[in-house]
């Protein structure tokens, strides 16, 4: 499989902190996790009511779910399995099409 299956089970969270307090909590949580910021580009750019998209390793997804639920911060998972999405994007169809 593509990229040696390294993204299997990884997820992308979309988090919307509603106020300054939630922003501070979110900054603290995400600073201690090795996540990949999709939008904005870094933890320092998180602002109230601006969406934060982060790519989270499969080993950390449960912990982030727990943190966000515990603090009632609004979020949803917009890509539930990154590897599958990657396979869909450039996996089998396009190779066949290209050939």
């Amino acid at each position, binding site marked *: 499989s593509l990229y040696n299956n390294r993204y299997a089970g990884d997820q992308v969270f979309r988090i919307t902190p509603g106020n300054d307090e939630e922003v501070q909590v979110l900054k603290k949580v995400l600073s201690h996790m090795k996540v990949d910021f999709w939008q904005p*580009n*870094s933890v320092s*750019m998180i602002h109230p009511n601006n969406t934060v998209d982060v790519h989270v390793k499969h080993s950390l997804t449960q912990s982030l779910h727990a943190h966000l639920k515990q603090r009632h911060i609004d979020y949803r998972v917009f890509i539930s399995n990154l590897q599958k999405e*990657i396979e869909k994007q450039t996996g089998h169809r396009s190779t066949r099409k290209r050939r």
Partner: protein
Amino acid sequence: SESEYDYEVYHPLQEIQSWMFEMNRTHPYLVHMFSIGKSYEGRPLYVLQVGQMGGETVENVTRLFVFRIILKTVFASCQLGKRSRPQKKAVWIDCGVHAREWIGPAFCQWFVKEAINSYKYDSVMRRLLNQLNFYIMPVFNVDGYHFSWTTDRFWRKTRSKNHKFHCRGVDANRNWKVKWCEEGASYHPCDDTYCGPFPESEPEVKAVAKFLRKHKKRVKAYISIHAYAQMLLYPYSYKYAAIPNFDCVESAAHNAVTALYSAYGVKYRYGPASTTLYVSSGSSIDWAYRNGIRYAFAFELRDTGYYGFLLPETLINPTCTETTRAVKAIASGLLKKC
């Protein structure tokens, strides 16, 4: 061959470069391919000049120059006097500054194909290519793009090494010499917004900056293609102030997003990058603006958070179709006075 090339799939770097050679070979009067330097890992930085040639190639320019001198002398003595043709204005478009934003290179290829295919039957495109040159760089960050195909799909930065840290790469959109490494950028080599050891430390950035400096008299617009957010941004990024020609740029942006909307009804937000998105220093549009390019834009293409960087290939066509309308609107604006 060109007719079989599929513009509705993502292509790895090698295929894009082969496609560039093919376009250069098959359209000598509209396309001229050249390199502006090498990347950190030694790959060529190819650019396509797209526009009705009319003696613009180097040999022709030289020949034309000599011919003009003779002609001028002859006509000057006979008072026939005929004004020589002014050099064409130019629009620079770069794609793929950030490696994982694959829709960028797909758009650059799409735009070249559209420009060439519609030159004959679309009067707007014909006028644009007759009066303007487009310098189109399908993959700015060639090393990062290749790495995103082979190893890390979500790589963002270049692939330069840092002697003190194990992390690699600089954010090529934080490496320009304008308010370098201040708000919105990071000094830390492991951060995704790392500004680099010094401005233009990245050979890719240095090569583009050098080209734009060299052609600054002719380049009237700078466009950088990014993803994802569905926005059209213009200076400033590094501060909350209005640019001197705000009215003209704002109206150009308005016209562009209106043209984009006309394709599929997709709404783009537009405005100064600092207020529309966030403050960030060292960006290419601020550098271009400060270096005399009065129209500098950054597109953030689809989507707004459903697929993110993994925009499906089935959306390449509509995304590139609508964005082509926006770019044509910006370029057309250059031919009018504002």
